[in-house]
């Protein structure tokens, strides 16, 4: 129904109605990717830059074109501000977009971001005219610093990329949400639908998922599941949830309760 049309949000002035950004990594086949894109309802998908591979099967670019989605290049695999900046510039040349999902990784095992390199890279890319969407930790101060240097969104992790652990520190996400007017996009950690719903309920504007969808047993069904979960979380947030109470609150009135008397039999079955 019209009155439940999901409210939109905007990144760098671009209005978006889908709150799911889909990472294209990990899909077994391009056909599955295409189906998942359609089920997810996403408007933006991420891609990476790699050397031309003559053996490559099919054209990712063609598939994404057919799906009519916008390509958001990332800088996956970069461990320094320097490499990330160069990679972003190449992505701009290749895809003709000045948007970049900025990743500067600090550790191979956890793929966690390197706060200092990330901040330097963000600063340089903003100066170079990029719309910078940084993949960052859940550190609220780093988030503010990224905002200060001119990033277009904050993309904090819930837990490590592909870990499926969900949101390890909801408190920090809440702080990030409170302090910024930028869009907050949960990036990394989502394992299943409830994680995505929770992220939105905590105040995130959108969720980026790759592995949770692409590596599910049925990626297309999971794409739809997470799309619905995000819609559910958004509706719930806007519907104004009940407060958490320490004790119960009856959902049935006491008034008018009947009173029965069975003198014949003890009030309780036990003790007998």
């Amino acid at each position, binding site marked *: 129904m019209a009155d439940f049309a999901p409210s939109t949000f905007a990144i760098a002035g671009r209005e978006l109605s889908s709150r799911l950004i889909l990472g294209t990594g990990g899909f077994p086949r391009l056909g599955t990717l295409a189906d998942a894109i359609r089920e997810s309802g996403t408007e933006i998908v991420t891609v990476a830059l*790699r050397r031309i591979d*003559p053996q490559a099967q099919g054209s990712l670019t063609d598939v994404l074109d057919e799906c009519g989605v916008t390509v958001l290049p990332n800088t996956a695999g970069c461990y320094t501000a320097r490499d990330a900046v160069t990679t972003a510039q190449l992505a701009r040349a290749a895809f003709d977009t000045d948007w970049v999902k900025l990743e500067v990784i600090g550790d191979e095992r956890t793929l966690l971001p390197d706060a200092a390199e990330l901040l330097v890279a963000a600063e340089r890319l903003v100066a170079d005219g990029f719309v910078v969407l940084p993949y960052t930790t859940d550190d609220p101060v780093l988030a503010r610093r990224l905002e200060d240097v001119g990033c277009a969104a904050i993309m904090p992790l819930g837990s490590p990329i592909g870990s499926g652990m969900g949101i390890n520190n909801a408190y920090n996400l809440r702080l990030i949400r409170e302090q910024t007017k930028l869009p907050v996009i949960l990036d990394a950690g989502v394992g299943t639908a409830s994680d995505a719903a929770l992220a939105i309920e905590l105040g995130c504007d959108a969720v980026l998922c790759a592995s949770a969808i692409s590596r599910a047993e049925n990626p297309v069904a999971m794409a739809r599941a997470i799309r619905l979960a995000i819609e559910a979380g958004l509706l719930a947030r806007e519907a104004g949830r009940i407060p958490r109470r320490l004790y119960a609150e009856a959902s049935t009135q006491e008034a008018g309760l009947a009173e029965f008397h069975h003198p014949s039999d003890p009030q309780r079955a036990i003790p007998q």
Partner: protein
Amino acid sequence: MIVLNGTESEVLTPVTVAELVRLVEAPDRGVAVAVDSEVVPRGEWDLFEVSDGARVEILTAVQGG
């Protein structure tokens, strides 16, 4: 000799970026080139000459999170 996408290649230099792009059978869209870590805009590919010993990276889109 140049280093093309990480591999030493016996290519007669000078050679243009455009020629190298054809050499690696790059698709006609979604491709970017760096020579010695500097981006070479598509518009310059035909004229940009790669000299001996240069490191050339010719990249395109792959699936990524």
